[in-house]
């Protein structure tokens, strides 16, 4: 399979832990397209999560791995890999076993406990361009082909 996938690459040296990526992501995945309503009325959560330890901070989101453990571990067939190597998670098929959450080495698959399905970065498929990359004010996220 030839992979021609564009992914989001975080650059640790530039990340200033502002969480714009988190909030932008939550907003664009909401019904309301409004950040406040996305969190407060729709109860959504961000797909990238900013990890901070002292001076080190980095936005962590699904890596769309070449050998995705989550795909292997998924019991319901909710996780699929498309021809470009993009790892998709069908929230409707997910049965909430949290296997993907447990096996993801990056902690990039999250449990949506209230809705009984997991969720992760979909590279803003509907939108066409990842919202986190667009929102990042310090050029700490780039959207580029796999290297």
């Amino acid at each position, binding site marked *: 399979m030839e992979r021609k996938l564009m992914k989001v690459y975080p650059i640790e040296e530039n990340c200033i832990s502002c*969480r*714009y990526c988190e909030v932008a992501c939550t907003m664009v995945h909401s019904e309301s397209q409004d950040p406040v309503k996305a969190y407060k009325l729709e109860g959504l959560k961000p797909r990238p999560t900013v990890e901070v330890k002292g001076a080190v*901070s980095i936005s962590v989101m699904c890596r769309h791995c070449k050998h995705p453990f989550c795909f292997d571990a998924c019991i319901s067939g909710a996780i699929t890999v498309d021809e470009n190597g993009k790892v998709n998670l069908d929230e409707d098929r997910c049965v909430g076993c949290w296997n993907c959450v447990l096996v993801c080495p990056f902690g990039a698959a999250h449990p949506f406990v209230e809705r009984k399905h997991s969720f992760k970065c979909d590279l803003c498929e509907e939108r066409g361009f990842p919202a986190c990359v667009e929102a990042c*004010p310090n050029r700490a996220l780039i959207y580029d082909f796999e290297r």
Partner: protein
Amino acid sequence: MLFKKPQVAFYPFMVLRDDYKCVRCKSCVDQCSFNATYYDEDLDAILNHHENCVNCKRCEAFCPTDAIKVVKNPSTFHPDANWTAEAIRDIHTQMLTGAVILTSTGNDKPIRNYFDHLLLDACQVTNPPIDPLREPMELKTFIGRKRDDIQFDEDGINIKTKIGKQLELEIPVIFSAMSYGSINLNLQKAMARAAKEFGTLWNTGEGGLHKSLKEFKDCTIVQVASGRFGVDLDYLETSAAIEIKIGQGAKPGIGGHLPGEKVNEGIAETRMIPVGSDAISPAPHHDIYSIEDLRQLIYALKEATNYEKPVFVKIAAVHNVAAIACGIAHAGADAIAIDGVRGGTGATPKSLRDHVGIPIELAIAAVDDRLRKEGLRNEVSLIAAGGFRSAVDVLKAIALGADAVYIGTVAKIAAGCTQCQQCHTGRCAWGITTNDPKLAKRLNPDIVAENLYNLLRAWAHDIKELLGAMGINAIESIKGNRLRLRSWGLTEQENKILGVLPAGM
């Protein structure tokens, strides 16, 4: 407030948060470097220690839902023109600490800004203005010693006279001295890149030149100050010019002190001092007690660099600045940099910042006059510094007699600075005057270099428009051309010092 001195409750700023809009992303908690914002897990609320807030506005800028406004504390002391809140708070600070009040940035007192009292001329009917978009317009400026006499070849066309090394600037605006230590490498990198790309210079300040910036040799002014940090032959040679720093506008007459805890490996290596040791610049240069001594240092530096580097001398604008400037010209400097009372700094006692020195506008006029009278004006270039805010200020300074202008605060503001006056704490939330790795990474040199380049470009456009309106097509023709200035609201004496006529005359 519990466990605090009572005076702490009279804090100057408050953080207002629209709790309905707050989505608990905790960005503000992470961005605040002054321990003024925190998240309480039990309450699931973002709260503030208002008494720690310095109004840097970092949280306000980075709240994704615009839920924050940082405001002046509406609780006031009894209104009193003498016993202002600042006067009272300063007494509180000193009675509690027993120490000099340290601050940073530039003088924030309403000392008359003469630029705001000067107006430029324009052409109407009797002389045509020039459209800078249609006709060539030159901002090229040469810094360095010129000659009074010019001799031509027999053909009468080619100039025979040889002049010393000149620095060629595409705009008469230079990034002013800010040392590695007082600011971080990211801002220096950004200034160096913008200077190189636009065709102007940046100044290392007194903290040496980091090895990663050596590639910017041709647009770097290296400073030699009383602490002699990072000075060796290689340093002097890796430059476009050398500047001897005698003083600076924000703290004339005193030295500097970079506390040991800020001296990390990079700074230590660049300054050539041990990691963690205090970097102290004495108030005087211990080898300069007279103009003759200064001359020795100027010529020592010239000799060391084969007479290839112009040598600048930077002083603060003090009361007898004109006489001192003449001495400096006599001592052999190629340029004199004068820093006015509004000049900025990374750390200074507040009493000095706010009460010592004179405005740069008056200093430019006085020095230019005096140098002319002594027949020295061509011997030396005049670079003005201290509080320049816009292209208009630059142009007015040049019309008053400066050759070029240093900008420092402007560069910091373009990098995000909100002038919160906390540089001396080393906690700059915008990542400018700090070397804390968590904070310093907030300043992305790529972004800031672009911003600075844009700013220079915008100022160049502005200056060209103003020159065009005056019917002038080269910045050279407005230099010291005070006839194209008028003043308003100034006394006769002030007009006399500035050498300008009042509007209407």
